[in-house]
């Protein structure tokens, strides 16, 4: 690629692209991370229509709108250029995130609140669908051929760092609002959750300013000067067999497996630690935060390595390792959090009960918390909520019981190590994939062609991982690890297709 940018220039390009993409991921994840708080503010379960809008916000934004955004903005990026398109996606994402933070609650303005949240969430999904392909293409088109994997891998760190920052901002805000921890969390659930959303606008303004100063990609500019840009990128991408077969290969041989490994290593792992292992809210998140911090540099390691040994086998090795080790690793998480065979110090056991008179002024709500302290310093808190009826004949049929475990330092760090391994697989499959996708398609339809398989692989196959895994555990209740069969089967299919059909020499970019 003769028109690649100087080394100093490429770092400017990477910084400008990465900061914007990181902010987009941050914006997208804070909604997901705060789903429970948002649901209580905007989608009360007692109202069926609001609950319906909540389901739509969850499913539509992730699965339908992301690939649709890939088509809309991919086409635009191939028609008018990369720079202005991913500037537009950044403004849309930042604007809608800020606006979510400003919407009055359901209690204040009724149905308009959940409808507005749904609309803004859809815009977020649409913008995310357009952003990644633009940023990856923009960086790749500035990078020299022999270091494309290394330079694009910086863009690949942004999705994980976006999650890292969103978790960090949420945890800090939860503790920052009051000196008393319980009061601080209460304030956060009431109004403090808006802070991470509002903060986004500052980051977006800075990023837009930086991006405005950037020039158009040299390869796209060259095509434009020569009058060789595509007039109909969608038709050329998906109606021409020569390109469609590569789009399908990218999806079934790479992004499908990459998506499930990504979502299993980060989202499902955290959800598994919190909901299946019953580790407490903060520890389940800080475990992920530490693991992300240690594993993130490996995106660059594997991206750079892919320039030397090729993209294909690094990605497929990541899928292979995931296939053979997911069950043992997740089983180890279960074993580590199992407190059945531990010795309790019974003298330290604490029992606390709170009583609240219910609005009917007759019955009472009882909340009993029993704290068990173990010799190895683990703590198990069991909270039971039931109703004490004034009418002695009435009894709570099934009291709500929640369990929360606080792990000792040794077990905590062992869990961090396991999640680190899971994220290491993510870095293997995800580090080289931007360069792989970019090299599969010609410059004039690259944005459109690479965005769709990326967002189907990640948004649909990856995004469905938590739902399908949870669904499997509700059907086959005897096996707590049954949910892992979904990412394992998808990865096997992708591994076979990738190994058979992807060539290590695939590189259309060099032929442009």
């Amino acid at each position, binding site marked *: 690629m003769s028109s690649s940018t100087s080394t100093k220039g490429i770092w400017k390009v990477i910084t400008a692209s990465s900061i914007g993409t990181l902010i987009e991921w941050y914006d997208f994840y804070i909604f997901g991370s705060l789903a429970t708080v948002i649901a209580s503010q905007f989608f009360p379960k007692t109202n069926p229509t609001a609950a319906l809008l909540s*389901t739509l916000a969850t499913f539509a934004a992730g699965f*339908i709108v992301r690939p649709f955004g890939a088509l809309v903005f991919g086409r635009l990026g191939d028609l008018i250029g990369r720079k202005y398109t991913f500037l537009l996606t950044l403004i849309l994402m930042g604007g809608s995130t800020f606006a979510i933070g400003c919407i009055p609650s359901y209690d204040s303005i009724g149905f308009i609140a959940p409808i507005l949240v749904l609309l803004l969430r859809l815009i977020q999904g649409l913008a995310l669908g357009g952003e990644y392909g633009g940023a990856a293409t923009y960086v790749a088109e500035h990078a020299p051929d022999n270091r494309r994997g290394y330079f694009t891998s910086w863009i690949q760190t942004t999705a994980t760092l976006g999650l890292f920052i969103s978790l960090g901002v949420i945890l800090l805000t939860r503790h920052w609002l009051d000196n008393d921890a319980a009061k601080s969390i209460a304030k956060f659930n009431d109004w403090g959750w808006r802070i991470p959303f509002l903060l986004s606008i500052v980051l977006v303004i800075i990023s837009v300013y930086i991006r405005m100063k950037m020039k158009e990609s040299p390869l796209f500019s060259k095509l434009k000067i020569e009058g060789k840009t595509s007039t109909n990128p969608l038709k050329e991408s998906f109606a021409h067999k020569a390109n469609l077969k590569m789009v*399908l*290969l990218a999806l079934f041989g790479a992004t499908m497996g990459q998506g499930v490994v990504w979502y299993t290593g980060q989202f499902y792992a955290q959800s598994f630690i919190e909901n299946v292992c019953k580790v407490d809210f903060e520890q389940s998140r800080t475990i992920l935060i530490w693991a992300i911090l240690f594993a993130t540099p490996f995106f660059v390691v594997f991206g750079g390595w892919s320039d030397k040994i090729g993209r294909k086998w690094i990605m497929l090795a990541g899928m292979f390792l995931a296939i053979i080790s997911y069950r043992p690793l997740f089983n180890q998480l279960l074993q580590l959090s199992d407190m059945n065979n531990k010795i309790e110090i019974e003298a330290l056991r604490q029992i606390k009960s709170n009583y609240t008179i219910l609005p009917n002024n007759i019955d009472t709500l009882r909340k009993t918390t029993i704290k068990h302290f173990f010799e190895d310093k683990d703590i198990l808190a069991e909270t039971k909520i039931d109703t004490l009826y004034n009418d002695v004949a009435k009894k709570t049929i099934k009291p709500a019981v929640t369990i929360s475990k606080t792990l000792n330092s040794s077990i905590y760090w062992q869990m961090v190590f396991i999640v680190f391994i899971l994220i290491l697989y993510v870095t293997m499959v995800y580090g080289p994939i931007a360069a792989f996708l970019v090299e599969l398609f010609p410059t004039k339809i690259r944005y459109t062609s690479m965005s769709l398989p990326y967002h189907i692989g990640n948004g649909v196959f990856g995004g469905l991982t938590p*739902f399908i895994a949870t669904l499997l555990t509700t059907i086959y209740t005897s096996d707590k690890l049954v949910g892992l069969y979904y990412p394992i089967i998808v990865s096997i299919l992708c591994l076979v297709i990738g190994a058979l*059909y992807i060539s290590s*020499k695939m590189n259309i970019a060099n032929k442009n």
Partner: protein
Amino acid sequence: MNKLKKIAGIVWILLGPISIFYLIKTAASEIAKKPHIDTKIQWYVFVIIFIPIAIGLMIFGYYALKGEYDNVE
């Protein structure tokens, strides 16, 4: 290798309709179990999204069978 790619193409073609059938069957059974509107929407989204992907897998298999990926560079 090219022969193996073509034979595997038949598998991908067959996987398409099998997954569509399994998806619709599971969706119908899950909706019947919990006929709430949110369950319906969730499964309608799954079906609407996955049917085109399954068709894509069949097209991929067809291309593989026809040798479109032979000696691909």
